[in-house]
């Protein structure tokens, strides 16, 4: 074709091209995640499930099937569910609190979990995240949404690491099981949220201070604990 068909003959474009290569060529060297190599997502879910069983962690077949949710991270969706927005607001409101970040502290964890479970009408668990550096601060009951947006109590668990960085896990009951989702990601203002719906419970894990990669790791840890 004509010279027109070799865009990089243009010096300005050539310079731009070099800049882009500097910015993005490092991606070529990154190891390709395994799940991208597998032809189908489901195969990978099964492979993971199988390896977990092999590890003696007793992952049931059903849980194995559900494990594929760990793999899918989805960009912000058109419709961020209302509970995710509420979770982000609750995160922003309570995490800066110095004296009263929670209603019931981790020293009364058993009572906290029993109380919130009773109010939400569903068996809740406060995942233990000490292994990944986050300890439970405590939790609180909050006004939220239940079936079809009707007012209902929801729960917030707060964790923090040694640096004082806080994350919150917001849990709502009576989520529609037909809406069960893989991990999804939403950004509400400066609050990053990974959320998912699993067995009628909606979860939203929020943070303002840590990166999405790290938050995803924590979300994975939470998910695994809630699906032993």
């Amino acid at each position: 074709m004509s010279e027109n068909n070799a865009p990089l003959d243009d010096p300005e474009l050539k310079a731009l091209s070099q800049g882009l290569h500097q910015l993005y060529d490092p991606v070529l060297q990154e190891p390709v995640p395994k799940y991208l190599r597998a032809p189908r997502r489901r195969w990978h879910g099964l492979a993971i499930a199988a390896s977990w069983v092999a590890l003696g962690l007793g992952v049931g077949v059903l849980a194995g099937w559900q494990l594929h949710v760990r793999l899918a991270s989805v960009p912000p969706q058109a419709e961020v569910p209302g509970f995710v927005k509420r979770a982000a607001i609750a995160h922003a409101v309570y995490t800066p609190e110095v004296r009263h970040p929670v209603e019931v502290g981790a020293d009364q964890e058993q009572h906290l979990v029993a109380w919130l479970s009773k109010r939400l009408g569903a068996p809740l668990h406060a995942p233990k995240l000490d292994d990944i550096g986050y300890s439970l601060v405590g939790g609180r009951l909050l006004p939220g949404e239940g079936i079809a947006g009707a007012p209902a109590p929801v729960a917030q668990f707060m964790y923090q690491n040694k640096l004082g960085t806080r994350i919150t896990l917001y849990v709502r009951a009576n989520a529609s099981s037909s809406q069960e989702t893989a991990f999804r990601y939403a950004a509400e203002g400066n609050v990053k949220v990974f959320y998912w719906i699993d067995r009628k419970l909606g979860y939203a894990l929020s943070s303002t201070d840590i990166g999405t990669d790290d938050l995803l790791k924590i979300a994975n840890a939470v998910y695994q604990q809630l699906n032993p």
Partner: protein
Amino acid sequence: MNDADSIVELIPRLRRYARALAGDRIAADDLVQDTLERAWSKLHLYRRGTDLRAWLFTVMHNVYVNQLRALRPTAPLDEEMPELAQPLRETDTLVLRDLDTAIRRLPPDQREVLLLVALEEMSYDEAAGTLGIPIGTVMSRLARAREKLRAMLSGLPPGGSKQLKIVK
């Protein structure tokens, strides 16, 4: 090498392009994942002997456009993107970071053309084929993208440069 192996070989290229197109790593790999799933299921539609890379990039383009529509149903693809806070990366020089930010603010349709031409080093022909648009449209989008980048990198609002020229 069969088609499946060839696709796997091209994954790093898809990831590079997706990272530049979608911005953050999670969104980018999700785009790659959706693209690959579509590609695996549509592999029978790929005509052997044609450029597999261009075919994969076409698949990614379609997935990307669908994702954008799902993201903001009413947003036209030629709308400028709001400025997003970018995490600082130590290795970047200031200039590169500015370039990164500027590219992110281009309307998606212009960003695609710019990246196919300048990062993937496609010819106008190839870019036009990949995006399924006429070659003239590739050129005009590229020209607009370059004008915007020039303006952004010189710290002027897009369009501002024109006014300055008049004054001059």
